């Protein structure tokens, strides 16, 4: 019987991801260009924040994807620990640098946005600080992957770190709120839409968000394919040495 787990086989994954990848790149490009152009040039300036508000189209999607990337790593790590699918572990490895860059973008755009708004580049606000800590978690996770020679052992150790790290990252998030009540504005997007920002900002933002999501997907697929090829190369070298 066909099951979802079939795609965890490296060859099957390479075939399917190879066919999907151009489409994912395409959707990502259309949504990104559409959302960002729409957002930057065809929305009115905010009456309080002026044109600086437009950085929201980069800031919010990258912040959302920074957190989602970590959750994707958590899920793929769990799949690796429970079902031992190599592709799953490699997908977690591939997602980490992408998530880290999204975190960095969220931090930088936040600083650029915050400077004119709050008069400071950096504020030890719980939300900002938790992204800084998330950034550190990404660094540690990637460093552990690099440090362990045996790929299966590295996958196991990083998966355990990801699990423990998630718990501590969540605790840190609440500890930071307790530590310093912030000045960051509340969540701009929520599904119960009453307090959502006006529709003129909302639609381009959602488009940009979809663009960042597909960009993340494309990058992770692409990087996972690279990791699989690297493992294949390793296996070939090992075979060569044995023969």
């Amino acid at each position, binding site marked *: 019987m066909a099951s979802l787990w079939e795609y965890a086989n490296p060859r099957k994954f*390479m075939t399917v991801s190879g066919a999907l990848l151009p489409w994912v790149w395409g959707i990502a490009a259309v949504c990104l260009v559409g959302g960002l152009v729409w957002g930057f040039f065809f929305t009115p300036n905010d009456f309080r924040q002026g044109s600086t508000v437009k950085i929201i189209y980069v800031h919010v999607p990258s912040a959302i994807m920074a957190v989602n990337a970590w959750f994707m790593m958590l899920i793929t790590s769990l799949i690796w620990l429970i079902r031992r699918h190599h592709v799953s572990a490699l997908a977690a490895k591939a997602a980490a640098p992408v998530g880290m860059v999204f975190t960095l973008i969220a931090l930088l755009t936040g600083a650029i946005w915050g400077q004119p708004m709050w008069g400071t580049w950096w504020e030890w606000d719980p939300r900002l600080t938790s992204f800084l800590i998330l950034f550190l978690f990404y660094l540690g996770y990637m460093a552990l992957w690099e440090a362990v020679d045996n790929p299966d052992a590295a996958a196991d150790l990083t998966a355990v770190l990801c699990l423990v790290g998630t718990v501590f990252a969540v605790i840190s998030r609440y500890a930071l709120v307790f530590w310093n009540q912030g000045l960051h504005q509340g969540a701009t997007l929520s599904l119960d839409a009453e307090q959502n920002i006006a529709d003129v900002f909302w639609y381009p933002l959602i488009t940009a968000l979809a663009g960042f999501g597909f960009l993340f997907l494309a990058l992770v697929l692409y990087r996972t394919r690279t990791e*699989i090829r690297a493992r294949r190369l390793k296996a070939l070298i090992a075979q060569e040495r044995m023969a």
Partner: protein
Amino acid sequence: MRESCHLPLDLSMGYRWPAMLLSVTDLSCARGSAQVLAGVGFSVAEGEALILRGPNGAGKTTLLRTLAGLTPPLAGRIDCAPDAIAYAGHADGLKAQLTVEENLRFWAGAFAARDIAPALDAFDLHPLADRRAGEMSAGQKRRLSLARLLVTGRPVWCLDEPTVSLDVENVGRFARAVEGHIAAGGAAVIATHIDLGLPNARTLDVTPFMAKRLRSDDPFGGDPFAERVG
């Protein structure tokens, strides 16, 4: 109430065979992510010693670590009672700052044994009992490390090059310790290059099991990336 029929039938019909202590079937072992041995099969019964032979790098250490449960096997099965194996590897596992007696007492405690005197006797360690392990020669440390086996109280010894840095006299002591152990119903699997002088020991050469060539029934050797990925 009617008595139910128990499925595992007693096929021995009352005759007591020498109990099988360790039985290995079609075992594949990996070091790191590279498969080194494939299709290993042997069994060791009470009162038996099995000598593992093979060139350096053949996978004797990997096999012993797999038997000890440190490395999971790639394939195949190891049938053995739980907690039956005592493992001794290349490293002595001694603390330089502790005396011989303290080192041995620690391991006796870990294996819930009370008496360390027989172990000290077997390797003539009584005169050294108060010496710190850090002040001893490599051979003396080795003797202490082997004496540890006697306090484990476990039936199957898996030993990796146990006679390294032992002199002739102490190789003899070690051989007598192994003989005593198997005579008391134990068994031993020993990787070694020298002749231990154990009269009833069987020898297993691991060379035929070396995973040199990819076999047609298992072309991937447990590595999913050995297959063409496209």
